[in-house]
């Protein structure tokens, strides 16, 4: 059988039935590829693009968008991008559009080294295993090559390959608050009336509000990540009451706004993202990213493949994915406080002092410098919340897209208009 096939196909090279390929055809083809990326400002960074181009040999075209714009383009303009760099909670909206093709995990070299929670849903039995909301594992796999449905068990066809994530919580100014903040409930504390803020993106803000309401015992949820209309009604009522009583100083939508609010002292306690906290610290202002007893709100981001990719461009995209997990990016983003999907790879590109500080929760043995050269932490400081395992393991809910998303947005507008 094998012999007949050989005989049939092996005409001498250079003859008309088996033309010799020109030597220039295959060698440098990948160099002509330009991959177009869309994502948020968190990872669409020039330093990353330059390093990737240098290491991989093809070109990358990056666009930094807001979370909302990123989703809009992913869903409505499939021809504008080759690689989608987005959050897992966007997937229940993006995947049904059919604009992404599944990632064949056998082509991802270090797939098995990815933090277990993403690929198996397990994490040493810690609370994160039972976390509510759009947890990455729940939307990690598809049921088939052309499927628009998520598989509850691993299938080898992934939606996104994770590369950064974090455990979010409240940030506060210790100099203006004057004591330790240990519960989400403090956001509604009369002590901070007119000095708190919440994020004005419905899908994220509602989760923070739910954490606060639960902490204070104002209400309970069946599943915070999938609220019923009654639950949404009740939580918006609570938010409206707080707003009417003047609890909030302002709402923010982009992380620069949260930095301005905190740095100017307009707000002393608010929901925050980690780059916001590091940006406040980089201005030389104290800011604590408080570990709270109720746990963290998690988010995770990864890269997925556009349906349009094929051939050499698709190969380049897989190379880029492997590069993203290879450690350089993990270390780069790690110096801002994000976690890498494959920490052991990131470790190779971090100094022992950096690793001990960012991942192991040990006191900094030297000043911690962010990727842009600013000093974030002085020698001796300890990361808020401690080690990776303690922070990640304590995530109790994730940024979420709920079934009642439309209703949620309607009620959120009502809250803002109240």
């Amino acid at each position, binding site marked *: 059988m094998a012999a007949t096939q050989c005989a049939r196909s092996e005409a001498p090279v250079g003859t008309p039935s088996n033309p010799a390929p020109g030597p220039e055809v295959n060698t440098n083809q990948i160099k002509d590829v330009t991959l177009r990326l869309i994502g948020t400002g968190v990872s669409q960074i020039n330093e990353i693009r330059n390093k990737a181009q240098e290491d991989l040999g093809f070109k990358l075209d990056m666009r930094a968008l807001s979370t909302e714009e990123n989703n809009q383009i992913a869903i409505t303009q499939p021809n504008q991008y080759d690689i989608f760099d987005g959050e897992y909670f966007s997937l229940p909206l993006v995947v049904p559009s059919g604009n992404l093709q599944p990632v064949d995990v056998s082509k991802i070299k270090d797939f098995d080294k990815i933090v277990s929670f993403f690929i198996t849903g397990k994490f040493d039995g810690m609370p994160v295993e039972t976390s509510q909301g759009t947890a990455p594992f729940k939307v990690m796999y598809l049921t088939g090559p052309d499927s628009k449905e998520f598989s509850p068990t691993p299938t080898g066809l992934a939606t996104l390959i994770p590369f950064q994530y974090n455990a979010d919580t409240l940030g506060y100014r210790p100099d203006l608050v004057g004591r330790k903040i240990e519960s989400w409930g403090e956001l509604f504390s009369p002590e901070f009336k007119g000095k708190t803020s919440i994020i004005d993106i419905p899908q994220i803000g509602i989760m923070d509000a739910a954490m606060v309401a639960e902490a204070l015992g104002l209400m309970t949820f069946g599943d915070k990540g999938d609220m019923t209309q009654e639950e949404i009604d009740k939580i918006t009522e609570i938010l409206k009451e707080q707003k009417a009583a003047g609890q*909030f100083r302002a*709402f923010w939508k982009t992380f620069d706004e949260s930095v*301005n609010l905190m740095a100017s002292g*307009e707000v002393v306690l608010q929901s925050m993202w980690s780059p916001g906290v590091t940006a406040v610290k980089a201005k030389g202002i104290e800011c604590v990213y408080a570990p709270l007893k109720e746990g963290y709100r998690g988010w995770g981001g990864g890269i997925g493949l556009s349906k349009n990719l094929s051939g050499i461009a698709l190969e380049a995209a897989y190379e880029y994915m492997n590069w993203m997990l290879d450690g350089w990016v993990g270390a780069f983003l790690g110096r801002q406080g994000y976690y890498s999907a494959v920490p052991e790879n990131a470790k190779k590109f971090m100094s022992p002092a950096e690793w001990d500080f960012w991942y192991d929760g040990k006191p900094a043995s030297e000043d911690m410098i962010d990727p842009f050269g600013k000093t974030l932490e002085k020698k001796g400081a300890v990361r808020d919340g401690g080690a990776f395992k303690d922070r990640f393991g304590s995530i109790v809910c994730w940024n979420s897209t709920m079934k009642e998303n439309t209703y949620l947005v309607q009620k959120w507008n009502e809250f803002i*208009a109240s």
Partner: protein
Amino acid sequence: MLKGWKVFEPYLLITPQTVVFLLFLVFPIIMIGVVSFWEFNGYSMTPAFSTSNYVSIFTSDVTLKTYTNTFKFVFLAWFFCLAIAFPVSYFLAFYIPSKQWQIILFLVCTVPFWTSNIIRNISWVPLLGKEGLVNQMLIGMGIVQQPVEWLLYSDFAIVLGMVHLFNFFMIAPIFNSLMRIDRNLITAAQDMGASGFQVLKEVILPLAAPGIAIGSIFVVTLVMGEFVTVRLMGGGQAASIGKLIQTQIGSLQYPLAAANAVLLLAVTMVMVMGILRVVDIRKEL
């Protein structure tokens, strides 16, 4: 042959502009109108003829509240723009004798436009914030003990930001119509024994009315659709129709946002027509 050309010439000349106008203004607005009847779920929209978007707008009390709030901003911004722009234009037109200085001072009025909208808005924070210059001054002078909070992230701040942004749109047309007033009319009025106030009331104001109307149209339409100033100066706590639409677009609810946009367009058109009813601006053209 030549005669045929003469007939078609004006039509040919207006063709490019008409095409641009149709393609980039009329067609998109028609599309918005069409999409406003579509159905949508969380991630996609489907062509349909559904009035449910409009039903939900007209049955929600958020709509009325948000429009009331927007009208409030429109009225306040318009009132203060006019209150500032008229004296400024009057001064420029009648008290600055040199043409050159008129132009220089007029250009000074455009200074707020030398930076971007967002930077202009953000730079209010160090001035009006709790630890800002104004509060430091007030506390330093012993006028207040606690920082005044309503200076920033309040309706006051929103109106202040809008007046700062849009004042020039009022100054320019009023200045223009004041400059067109024949100075002999004023001299004649004075010869007839009119007092300064009478000249203002009987001669200048009526002749400035078209300018005021054009300025008002600018300010009203700009404020009706405003969402950046409302968000940044109001700290996201205040509602306006523009901001409502923006939130809906951000959550991919295009048909609902389109329905809101159609309603906003209709309401704004009614207001503009109202202004045109009161003042005949053709005199200006």
